């Protein structure tokens, strides 16, 4: 059964995340502690980096929501989605519409952004539930086909209904500046990073807990053996819909955050390429692992930057440089994917944990 599913992890150990012995803290406490640590780190770093790097880091946080959600769906529950870019678009457009509606009514205070984010997540949950119910009846290539259709249809809808979505132009997203309490010279990018990181951390803590919960176990059971899962009393279709909805909610939040960062949304940003990039990112990072999703998100942001620097190294005609910059990220992403699949089938995170295991075997901690 699992052989026909798209996303059984390539190595047997890679996506298992076995419960390691010697852990006594409750899962939630442990995750909250890690999240607090990361929050403090981001806070510190945001004062060290310049505005552009802060903005990039905020973009990583936004992508991280989407990649983490996708890795739960594809890596843990075994459902392939080629349509997560469209779900991000749903979140982004919902946020834009909500923010504009609030602005029209004079509700421009920063707190309304939180409401808009919730609206965006809820809207994506609805779309995700519809797609998820259909997806739960499909396997392998049929599921890929369905989600591919979603990836193509959603951006097209924004052009069709241009009265609401303003066609190719897209919508502007009014976002309140940083609170005055932070001082009048507080850089906007730093504030953006704080907002994106906070939303992303909440999303990750929830996902990490879900992965460790009974749902996480059900997801993996459904991925590995649907018949055995049913015999254990698990409602397979319901479990798959839950995974899809959770994943969609995360993607919606990611898309909404991107809209907040760019202060605009347009269909061009959420094309099929984004969906494919997201999938490649989670595979390269390490399928089924939230830490792997983080590597994927970093890659998604770093790669265009890297290709920009690369094309700047050569003196090219402006036309050639533009062509190269458009295509080079895809080429690099593709070759990275191939290289990672050969060298480390468990992705970056799989490689890291393999190294960590080897180190522990060599120099056992606490027994020196």
């Amino acid at each position, binding site marked *: 059964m699992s052989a026909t599913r798209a996303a059984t992890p390539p190595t*047997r*150990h890679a*996506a*298992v995340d*076995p*419960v*390691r*012995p010697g852990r006594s803290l409750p899962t939630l406490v442990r995750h909250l502690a890690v999240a607090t640590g990361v929050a403090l780190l981001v806070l510190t770093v945001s004062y060290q980096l310049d505005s552009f790097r802060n903005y990039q880091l905020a973009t990583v946080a936004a992508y991280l929501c989407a990649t983490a959600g996708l890795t739960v769906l594809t890596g843990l529950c075994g459902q392939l989605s080629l349509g997560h870019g469209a779900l991000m678009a749903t979140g982004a457009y919902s946020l834009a519409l909500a923010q504009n509606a609030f602005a029209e009514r004079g509700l421009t205070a920063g707190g309304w952004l939180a409401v808009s984010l919730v609206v965006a997540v809820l809207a994506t949950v609805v779309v995700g539930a519809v797609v998820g119910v259909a997806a739960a009846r499909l396997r392998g290539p049929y599921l890929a086909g369905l989600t591919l259709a979603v990836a193509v249809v959603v951006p097209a809808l924004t052009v069709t209904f241009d009265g609401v979505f303003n066609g190719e132009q897209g919508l502007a997203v009014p976002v309140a500046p940083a609170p005055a309490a932070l001082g009048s010279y507080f850089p906007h990018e730093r504030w953006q990073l704080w907002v994106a990181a906070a939303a992303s951390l909440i999303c990750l803590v929830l996902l990490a807990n879900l992965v460790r919960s*009974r749902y996480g*176990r*059900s997801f*993996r*059971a459904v*991925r*590995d*053996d649907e*018949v*055995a*899962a*049913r*015999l*254990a*009393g*698990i*409602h*397979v279709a319901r479990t798959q819909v839950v995974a899809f909805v959770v994943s969609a909610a995360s993607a919606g939040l990611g898309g909404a955050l991107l809209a907040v960062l760019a202060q605009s949304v347009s269909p061009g940003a959420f094309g099929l390429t984004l969906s494919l990039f997201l999938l490649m990112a989670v595979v390269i990072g390490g399928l089924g692992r939230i830490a792997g999703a983080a590597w994927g998100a970093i890659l998604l942001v770093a790669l265009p930057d890297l290709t920009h620097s690369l094309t700047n190294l050569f003196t090219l005609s402006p036309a050639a440089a533009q062509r190269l910059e458009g295509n080079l990220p895809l080429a690099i992403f593709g070759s990275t994917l191939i290289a990672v699949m050969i060298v480390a089938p468990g992705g970056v995170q799989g490689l890291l944990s393999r190294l960590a295991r080897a180190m522990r075997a060599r120099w056992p901690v606490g027994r020196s």
Partner: protein
Amino acid sequence: MAGDLLTAEALAAGYGPVPVLHDVDLRVPPGTIAAVIGANGAGKTTLLRTLSGMLRPTAGRILLDGRDLRGTPVEQLVRRGVAHVPEGRGVIGELTVEENLRLGALWRRDRSDAARALDEVYQLFEPLASRRRHLGHQLSGGERQMLALGRALVGRPRLLLLDEPSLGLAPRVVAQTMALLRQLRDDTGLTVLLVEQNVRSALAVADQGIVMSLGRVALAAPAARLRDDADLRHAYLGF
């Protein structure tokens, strides 16, 4: 008949256009072990798959405690107390022993009793207790068998449907499994429907023997009669 835990009446089932079971009647009283025996292709596994809801019957009725089970999906039957341990065990290889066992109790509302059931399974199968954090696919055949049985038992089933538990296992392990079934029947009143190729070991623990042939029940008789009556054994079992 009133009082039977499981009843099948005129049951027919098959795969697509190929009928496998014809007009199967059987009765399993509560707290007994019924052994379904017969040659390859007699329809034993198909019978179990039909009873556990994995295969829809094309005709006839299945009653659990007098209630018709037709059309009830597998995962719902599990909640009604029907546990099916399939041939090939159905252990999930990517989950640890503990996770596999807890999977079997996920649907249960009584969390404290689920935890108790888990402890009982570990007491029943000591090798599992020492391998809690091992992955399913790292276990030996015998351990997988224990795990599959254990996962069924944490749901505190009333009816255990067991497909070929002796398959690929050492005779000693088979004997232990059979002894365990008898112990569960005596201690907890568990009802077992056991499909077996290994006729002798199955009849040794069973209360009832159901001989299947070409998709029909050829004979249902007390296991003791099948064991002891040489003529009957010759006629139906060929030894």
